[in-house]
């Protein structure tokens, strides 16, 4: 972390960048938040540790409009989102100085607590300089050690790899933390009967309070004005008039980001109700991979997106019924 701060100070001092986009401590130790830093003094608040899951790419949209360059810290998985936004002309590459920061997996306080821990007051072992093999959790009832992997975000267990897709320089080591199969849960839902699927999603989605956190954090959901806030589809409302609408909201949100979603997992990370929203996005990614060929949004800026291209031999929509029969 110190190396990162030192480098940021250097770049600010020599005028390469006008500001730094990073993280600072939040209200709780394990809840750092994205922040802009414009001088050395502000940078004292800069943090980067295992809890810095937030993907900063989306902030670059606003930063692109500001005078001068912005130093942006991107983890390997964030760099996909950054490239995808570049592809969509939403951010200006020239306005960014990218430091690819190391990542050994990011933590989720709820996952840590799920190890049977109550009254958590602090967590150590999550600094970038650490091996990130083991966490020491201090609680009101004493300290406890748990494997690092047991406290990781779901998305880190299906890590896309330790390579940055784009950066100007790299600071810190990264680690591929993949332990699970990315589409395992999607496949499990697909295996369910129609009624079971319905029950599963009804249960999950009934928790939705339409706080829009998923939409606000999503780098792909970056429309100036969301359709759900506009009069174009008579769909502007905050609270759901009827419970069909939350289904509609999440399906349409997933559809709008289909082929553009990099599977960064921010939606699930920020959902206050713990809805596994990534299951929608991943379903589309899985279908796209199976039906139209492997595609990773943000990996290749030149690649044709699956929903804005086609081949004559594409499968017919009836494939849906055929697959669910088999």
């Amino acid at each position, binding site marked *: 972390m110190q190396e990162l701060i030192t480098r940021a100070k250097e770049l600010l001092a020599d005028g390469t960048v006008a500001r730094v986009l990073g993280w600072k401590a939040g209200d709780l130790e394990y809840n750092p938040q994205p922040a802009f830093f414009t001088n050395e003094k502000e940078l004292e608040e800069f943090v980067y540790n295992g809890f810095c899951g937030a993907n900063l790419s989306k902030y670059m949209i606003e930063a692109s409009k500001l005078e001068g360059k912005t130093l942006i810290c991107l983890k390997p998985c964030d760099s996909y989102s950054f490239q995808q936004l570049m592809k969509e002309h939403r951010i200006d590459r020239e306005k960014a100085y990218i430091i690819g920061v190391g990542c050994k997996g990011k933590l989720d306080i709820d996952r840590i607590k799920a190890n049977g821990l109550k009254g958590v007051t602090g967590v150590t072992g999550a600094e970038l300089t650490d091996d990130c093999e083991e966490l020491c959790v201090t609680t009101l009832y004493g300290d406890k050690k748990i494997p690092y992997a047991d406290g990781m975000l779901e998305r880190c267990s299906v890590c896309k790899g330790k390579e940055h897709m784009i950066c100007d320089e790299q600071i810190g080591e990264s680690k591929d933390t993949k332990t699970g199969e990315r589409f395992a849960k999607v496949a499990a839902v697909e295996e369910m009967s129609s009624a079971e699927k319905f029950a599963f999603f009804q249960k999950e989605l009934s928790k939705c309070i339409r706080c829009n956190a998923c939409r606000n954090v999503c780098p792909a959901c970056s429309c100036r004005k969301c359709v759900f806030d506009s009069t174009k589809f008579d769909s502007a409302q905050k609270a759901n008039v009827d*419970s*069909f609408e939350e289904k509609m909201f999440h399906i349409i949100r997933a559809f709008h980001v289909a082929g553009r979603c990099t599977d960064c997992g921010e939606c699930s990370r920020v959902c206050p109700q713990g809805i596994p929203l990534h299951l929608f996005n991943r379903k589309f990614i899985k279908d796209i991979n199976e039906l139209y060929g492997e595609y990773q949004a943000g990996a290749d800026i030149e690649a044709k997106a699956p929903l804005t291209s086609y081949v004559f031999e594409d499968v017919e929509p009836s494939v849906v019924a055929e697959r*669910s029969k088999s």
Partner: protein
Amino acid sequence: MSINNNSEFKPKIVAFCCNWCSYAGADLAGSSRLTYPADVKIIRVPCSCRVNPMFILRAFEKGADGVILCGCHPGDCHYTSGNFYARRRMTLLFSMLDYIGVENGRTRVEWVSAAEGVKFSATMNSFVEKIYSLGKNVRLEDLRCKN
């Protein structure tokens, strides 16, 4: 109270038809007097690619029991490529609807040319039959009424 419970199921079916092929195919079915149930109501769109998933979900939200999209055969699109995009979009959307537990028989895409009045009528007959066999769109209706 329960008198209406025995009333016959009258499905609401929305058919989006592209102006150049399927709408003309439906016209041909009409001028050839090829019948299909009156439950089907057609909405004219310029091309199958004009159909936004929002329209389909909105139909279900408002109580439709089935939604069918008809366009030109792949390769014959009046706008060259519209139906290719529609094909990918609808495949993904239908897959998603199936994934969240909406019976996949309630959505369908068929390619009907301007010369295929017979196919149009046959398609509508078979789709309506399917909707009758699935019955009322209870899953979505349950949600609608819950408030």
